[in-house]
């Protein structure tokens, strides 16, 4: 097990290094940072000055080492637009994205798995066929369209929920939360549901398929025959076995969640990291883009390693040398 964890950590490190190398080349070769920093009308001497101060006169491997060293210390340079530390700017947006994503994930998980179980028990009942048809709709509507339609219905026509922003927030230590005010909670409903929609439908279908397979197994028949109450058979015997792939997929689809968070934040003008990324892309604000990519890579790789290790611990069938 220890060797497995060590190997997994090493592989994670390789991925992070590869991403950092790509980021470095984006940084270095997409447009000339000297022109960006010194301004278009700088003289030759001024440009040389900037080039030296940025270390761009050194050989390429020295520059890369320097980039890595700075990155490891959380120093990704300053935003070209606002002249504030790029990492600080992104971290300031982190709570908003985190609250949106966790609310969405909880919604998707509770509703998706719950409905999946209900549908699997009586797959041919009229009501459950309707739920399945709905889930087909859920995986066939792209996130951005869900968001816009929800805004159209609930904000423009009915006018009961706010169409954009995060509403009133409260500062708790370093964390700015929207969960503590009624206004903040009202603001999170539409974006969270938008972000949850696709994953909800996927989880529903996954749970249903898994339950249908498991329910035909011998040990479930034994459990029924023993006279166990339905609640125990369904949740303890059947669902627990279905949950392993469901949880794994949820963990591994984190990249997808981040991508759709960018879309959702853009539509609802949610002041999170994704919204910042898209604006920075339009403005060619490279330090922000690079920081975002590195940070996302770090989060995804860490999460993957955790999921893999947990998986190896839970599942006795898997042995890693």
């Amino acid at each position, binding site marked *: 097990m220890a060797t497995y964890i060590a190997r997994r950590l090493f592989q994670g490190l390789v991925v992070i290094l590869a991403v950092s190398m790509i980021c470095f080349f984006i940084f270095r070769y997409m447009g000339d940072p000297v022109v960006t920093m010194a301004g278009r009308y700088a003289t030759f001497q001024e440009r040389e000055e900037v080039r030296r101060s940025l270390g761009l006169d050194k050989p390429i491997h020295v520059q890369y080492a320097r980039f890595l060293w700075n990155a490891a210390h959380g120093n990704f340079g300053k935003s070209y637009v606002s002249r504030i530390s790029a990492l600080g700017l992104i971290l300031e947006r982190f709570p908003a994205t985190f609250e949106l994503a966790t609310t969405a994930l909880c919604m998707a998980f509770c509703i998706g798995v719950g409905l999946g179980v209900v549908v699997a028990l009586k797959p041919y009942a009229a009501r459950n066929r309707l739920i399945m048809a709905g889930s087909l709709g859920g995986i*066939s509507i*792209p996130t951005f369209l869900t968001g*816009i339609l929800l805004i159209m219905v609930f904000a423009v026509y009915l006018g009961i929920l706010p169409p954009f922003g995060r509403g009133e927030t409260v500062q708790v230590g370093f964390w700015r939360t929207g969960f503590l005010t009624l206004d903040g909670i009202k603001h999170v409903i539409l974006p969270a549901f938008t972000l949850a929609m696709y994953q909800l439908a996927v989880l529903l279908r996954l749970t249903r398929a898994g339950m249908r397979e498991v329910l035909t197994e011998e040990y479930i028949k034994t459990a029924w025959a023993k006279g166990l109450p339905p609640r125990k058979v369904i949740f303890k015997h059947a669902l627990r076995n279905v949950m392993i792939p469901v949880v794994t997929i949820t963990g*591994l689809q984190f*990249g997808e969640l981040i991508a759709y968070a960018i879309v959702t934040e853009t539509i609802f003008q949610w002041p999170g990291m994704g919204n910042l990324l898209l604006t920075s892309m339009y403005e060619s604000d490279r330090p922000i883009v690079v920081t975002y990519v590195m940070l996302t*890579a770090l989060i995804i790789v860490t999460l993957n390693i955790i999921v893999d290790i947990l998986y190896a611990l839970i599942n006795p069938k898997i042995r890693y040398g």
Partner: protein
Amino acid sequence: MHDPSAIVGSVILFVFILAAILAPWIAPQNPYDLEKLSLDNFLTPPIWMEDGEAPYLLGTDDQGRGILSTIIYGCRTSLIVGFGVVLIAGTFGIIMGLLAGYYGGWLDALMMRLADTFFSFSTTLMAFLMLGIFGPRGVFIVIIAICIADWVRYARTMRGSVLEVKEEAYIMAAKATGAGDLRLLLRHLLPNAIPPIFVVVAVDLAVVIMLEATLSFLGVGVPINEPSLGMMIAIGRNYIYAGMWWMIVFPGAALVFLVVGINLFADWLREELNPKIERRA
């Protein structure tokens, strides 16, 4: 094919493909021919509403492009991107999966690690970052950006399938008669291991079409002088508060119809190819 939903799915897909091919003949107007555009006709509502005008069945957008015509041309882009990705990512993924599954060893280990990495970053995020950094440059670049991570779906499925087929008696027999690697791979493994790929193709087509719309909606997909359903919705979004719903509802409905059609077909294919699920007579 007795399943009604499979028939509905295939019919929808067929109609869309036909409309995409025949676009120049059936669209009332070519919305990207600047000579035929007239700004006088901008923001016209659908024909059955007050102020609706003759050639514009479903109304026009803010540049005077007919919504119906733009939808037909937009679906063309969707299908080109969809099939383009399936073709390129599919071919590459199948080859990679075949080689990894057959040879195993370091090639397999390397490929699977690469696949895991791309999978966890997700096709959506990779394509978005690629296009966001390099900017919108046309349909072909969109296809390539999506392919960068998308081939993994095919490679994984193919590898798994090859690992299973490899153990079959007829493969042993072919080996015993002295068949070379190339013959084994192409004549025996490829045709027998490929059926699970069909489901991946169908699901992927739906996913890629939604992804193209999403990328174009965000402004990093196809350039603004080319038709795209996602971009139509992005334009319509500016007019939600003005109550001009037709600029969002119609392209949105077309997109959802197309994707539902493909997904219905994929569902049928999956159940048909899965012997584990009991079907009701």
